[in-house]
């Protein structure tokens, strides 16, 4: 067996190269965030004059919190954050439950219609929001859910399900059929098998689905504008984007908004980083 902890010069050089590459990639991820954070303490005027200096280093300017205060109040962030949490949490929970159930059905309870049914779900991956936007607006209007949180949640669940069902199905297929068959012989119902055997084993793909759903719904910008009209029902991306116009951009407030929008996602990552890493790895190998 090769010695992994080799101390040969070649191994050391390899290690240096590896760490150098990792450092460069870390910089690609971290430096833009630091630059964003730094510039959020500059006024738009200071930023337009010098984009690289530290806040307050440009003559005649000082570091300021005015962007955060203004963005928070004018951007109505407390309401937007609460809405984003409701939409994201609601969608993730429903998508997880429905995708695992559908995945179990498609992977383990096959019948003649399985291919067609599975295909009808998965084809949704190919649909862009732009092509379903107007029909969706008409439909939501027709059933009286326009301008309500439920009218946003249902489409969000719908657009997240195709990928989730695809991933869950492929993952559950990799679980041996023998487990399901043994449980059936022991007298377990299909719901019992799903709850007691499949769901616990599908935890890695559930984490993958959660990551994909959280990131897409948290950042969703177009549908929320189409399906609601009240400011009180909009979500965080609306607040973040409102300081970037077609002809002018209020950079200071936009950067402050971006930092505000980034904090919940960073917190989410820090709390669940182990699960996220495991989930991505498992999803990549088995999904």
């Amino acid at each position, binding site marked *: 067996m090769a010695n992994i902890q080799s101390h040969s010069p070649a191994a050391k050089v390899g290690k240096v190269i590896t760490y150098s590459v990792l450092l460069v990639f870390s910089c690609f991820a971290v430096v833009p965030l630091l630059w964003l954070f730094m510039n959020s303490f500059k*006024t*738009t*005027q*200071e*930023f*337009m*004059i*010098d984009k690289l200096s530290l806040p307050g280093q440009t003559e005649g*300017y000082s570091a300021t919190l*005015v962007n955060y205060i*203004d963005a928070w109040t*004018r*951007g109505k962030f407390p309401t937007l954050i609460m809405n984003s949490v*409701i939409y994201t*949490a*609601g969608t993730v*929970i*429903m998508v997880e*439950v429905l995708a695992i159930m559908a995945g179990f059905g498609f992977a383990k309870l096959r019948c003649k219609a399985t291919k067609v049914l599975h295909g009808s779900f998965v084809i949704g991956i190919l649909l862009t929001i*732009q092509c379903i*936007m*107007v029909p969706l*607006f*008409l439909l939501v*209007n027709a059933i009286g*859910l326009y*301008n*309500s*949180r*439920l009218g*946003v*949640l249902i489409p969000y669940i719908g657009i997240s399900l195709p990928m989730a069902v695809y991933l869950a199905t492929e993952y559950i297929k990799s679980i041996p059929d023998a487990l399901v068959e043994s449980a059936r012989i022991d007298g377990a119902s299909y719901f*019992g098998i799903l*709850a*007691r*055997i499949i*769901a*616990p084993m599908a935890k890695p793909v559930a984490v993958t689905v959660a990551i994909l759903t959280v990131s897409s719904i948290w950042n969703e*910008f*177009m549908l929320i*504008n*189409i399906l*609601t*009209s*009240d*400011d*009180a029902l909009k979500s965080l991306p609306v607040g973040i*984007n*409102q*300081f*970037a*116009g*077609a*002809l*002018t*951009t*209020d950079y*200071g*407030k*936009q950067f402050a908004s971006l930092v505000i929008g980034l904090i919940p996602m960073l917190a989410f990552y820090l709390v669940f980083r182990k699960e996220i890493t495991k989930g991505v790895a498992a999803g990549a190998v088995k999904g």
Partner: protein
Amino acid sequence: MKKGKHTLTIALALLLCLVPAMLFAGGSSEATAAADDGKINLTVLNYRDTSATNSANEDEVVWDYFLEQNPDISLTIENIFGEPFLAKTEAYLASGNLPDVIYMWSGGKSASVHQNHAVKDLMPFLEKDGLVDDYNPAALVPQYGGYLAELPEGITASHMIFVNKTVLEDCGLEIPETLDDLLAMVPVLKEKGYGVFAMDNMTTWVMQSTLVSTIVGRLGGADWYDRLVAGEIDFTDDWFVDSLELVELLYDEGVINRNSLQSTYGTSRGPFALNQYAFLVDGDWACSSLMMDNTTGQALLSRERQENDIELIVFPEIPGEVVHDTTSGTIGTGYAISADIEEGSAKEEAAWRLVKYLQGEHVQEYRLVTGQAFPTNLNVDVDKVIEENNLEPLVSKRAEFYNTYSYTPVIDDVLSSEVANVIDIGLQELGLGSKTPVEVAQDVQDTWEKWLDKQ
């Protein structure tokens, strides 16, 4: 099996949590409750550009003030901006349920509203109230759909050259009057380390809207679009090819830096204010970016610099131009009344009261003071407002600019986006040197003919 039970319990608990969340989610908007107090409720689709300098007080100054003055009306305002605004307008049109009052453009961006005649002609309303003479005649011309669909808040000059006199004086130069003067300046400015035209051409519409529309107008005449539609001229004719050749010349001679093709729109305003360029080529809307921002108390150009260092001009005289001292301009945005509102109804009267107010003296004065738009309402005494409010020098210079220069069409305002996009891309290809002016002109002509065939 214990672990499985645990998972089932968690799943059920999550579902139980979700039920009240869903119920809460089902809570409808405040909007639906509005008109129960005997007031006439108007739904408004408003474009809210929060990034516009000094737009912070719009709710209080514009909308709340209207409600105070009109206690019999209530408003349900939907504020939206950017691409979603256009998508939402299309969705409303498709549903046949347009809000009572909508913000819209006079041209291409609101093409489907115009083409479907989804909003009322406002001219009969103006005539009925005897208000026609209160507005700049240029603002009341028929729009994309052939009638006055929206009452414009201003007339926009999409081409305005900001001259940095400090830079010119440092080089011993004068404001150029002809193209030759401009070209002769280039080596002098370069030697001193200055750039010539500050432009950000990465965004495709910028070159077309802020420079080429004016050049095309000069060489093609103010009526080039009408003659094009009438089939009297083509894009492959001299007026258009020469315009493109001039753009190529400006790149070749270093008037426009090819690096500008990598610069996002608005970026060069800072370097211009820092005296790194002799000229800033932009639209009139750039004025407000250079002026005081009330939320920070800072300005890219101080009052003193606006007064002493800055002049507003148009592109200098071009050999062979058929009209002189022109900029490119378009009627600004404004508000329209849905065609679905019953004629002669109380709601129609309320909607007209709102539209009239939004382009009345109070709101137009506010937009002048904040530098957002220059008034179309002739009752706004611009000089008096400037003096009374001690407005920054750039406002009065802007007023003088409008009085000095006449207008030719903005390309993307009169042509469909299908054709205008080919021009935008072609201008970038010229900048990159990947196509010649003749090739670009041919591409545009081909697209124009295809578009005509579809009509």
